[in-house]
């Protein structure tokens, strides 16, 4: 110890923190993979995606905490858009705004109601994601409130995808908990 101090060597990180970093990194890679995979799928309609990558954000939230989930959402959109080729295009900014809104809602709700189920969290995050995207489109791009006419059908689809993503996250989380025990 005193030898390390003399040589100005920082103390070794704990095994737990290294494990958390490894898990976070694997979640980021999975989220990017899902993000890119979704971009290759035929679109169910303009402006709508299944949001499969949000499963990883939800898992990061319950396993690693709020900061990890928030960083994952940003990393996923930025690195994913490099692979898709949409970096700094309107699609990128809309996607980033949606991801940030959803992550903020997730973190706030998780802090306020720690016993809230993953399906409820996912549902509200999906609705927030879609709303965040529309607010960005209306504020920066289209600048016409009529764009909100598109919102109700897309919110409906968001509820469906949010529920399914929440159920998938819940299933994975329960399996992981069992594996850890």
């Amino acid at each position, binding site marked *: 110890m005193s030898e390390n101090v003399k040589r100005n060597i920082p103390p070794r990180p704990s095994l737990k923190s290294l494990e958390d970093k490894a898990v976070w990194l694997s979640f980021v890679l999975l989220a990017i993979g899902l993000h890119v995979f979704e971009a290759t799928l035929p679109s169910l309609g303009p402006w709508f995606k299944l949001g499969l990558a949000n499963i990883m954000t939800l898992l990061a939230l319950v396993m690693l905490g709020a900061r990890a989930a928030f960083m994952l959402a940003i990393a996923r959109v930025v690195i994913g858009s490099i692979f898709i080729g949409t970096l700094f295009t309107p699609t990128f900014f809309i996607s980033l705004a949606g991801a940030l809104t959803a992550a903020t809602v997730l973190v706030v709700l998780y802090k306020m109601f720690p016993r809230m*189920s993953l399906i409820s969290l996912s*549902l*509200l995050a999906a609705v927030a994601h879609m709303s965040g995207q529309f607010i960005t489109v209306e504020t920066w791009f*289209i600048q*016409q409130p009529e764009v909100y006419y598109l919102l109700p059908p897309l*919110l409906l689809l968001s509820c469906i995808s949010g529920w399914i993503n*929440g159920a998938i996250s819940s299933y994975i989380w329960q399996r992981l908990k069992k594996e850890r025990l």
Partner: protein
Amino acid sequence: MTSENNHPKTDTVSFRQCLKGTWTDRILLIALLVGIALLWFQIEKTLSHGLPTAYVYHGKTLLASYPLPNDDKVIHVAAEGEIGVSDIEISKHGIHFVSSPCTTHYCMLSGHKKHTGSVIACVPNHIMVVIRGASDEAQPHFDAVTE
């Protein structure tokens, strides 16, 4: 001894169980659906009066407005946006983006929209076309209002 007793009881969670959610989840879903339905109803109510008219916008600027024709007349609007010109077709079949300078072409993939309240937006080009009932200032007796 039954086969059940031979194996230790496992409490594995099936995906189907997860998909059902809890009562709180279901109540939240119903509340959200009711909210969305009310929002949708409100929008429909606001728009469903007057002659269906297509409004073409670039950002905040109204470029053109045309009542949807009942005959075979086809109107083409060349809407100049941020990255180029979008060709918009207005006919009895509704509104339709024929061509667009954007790369995603979501606007073109939207197809024809005819109903009041329909919107097609080309986000990269900042062009939006919306169908709503003609308001007083739109002067629906004119063939077109342009800026």
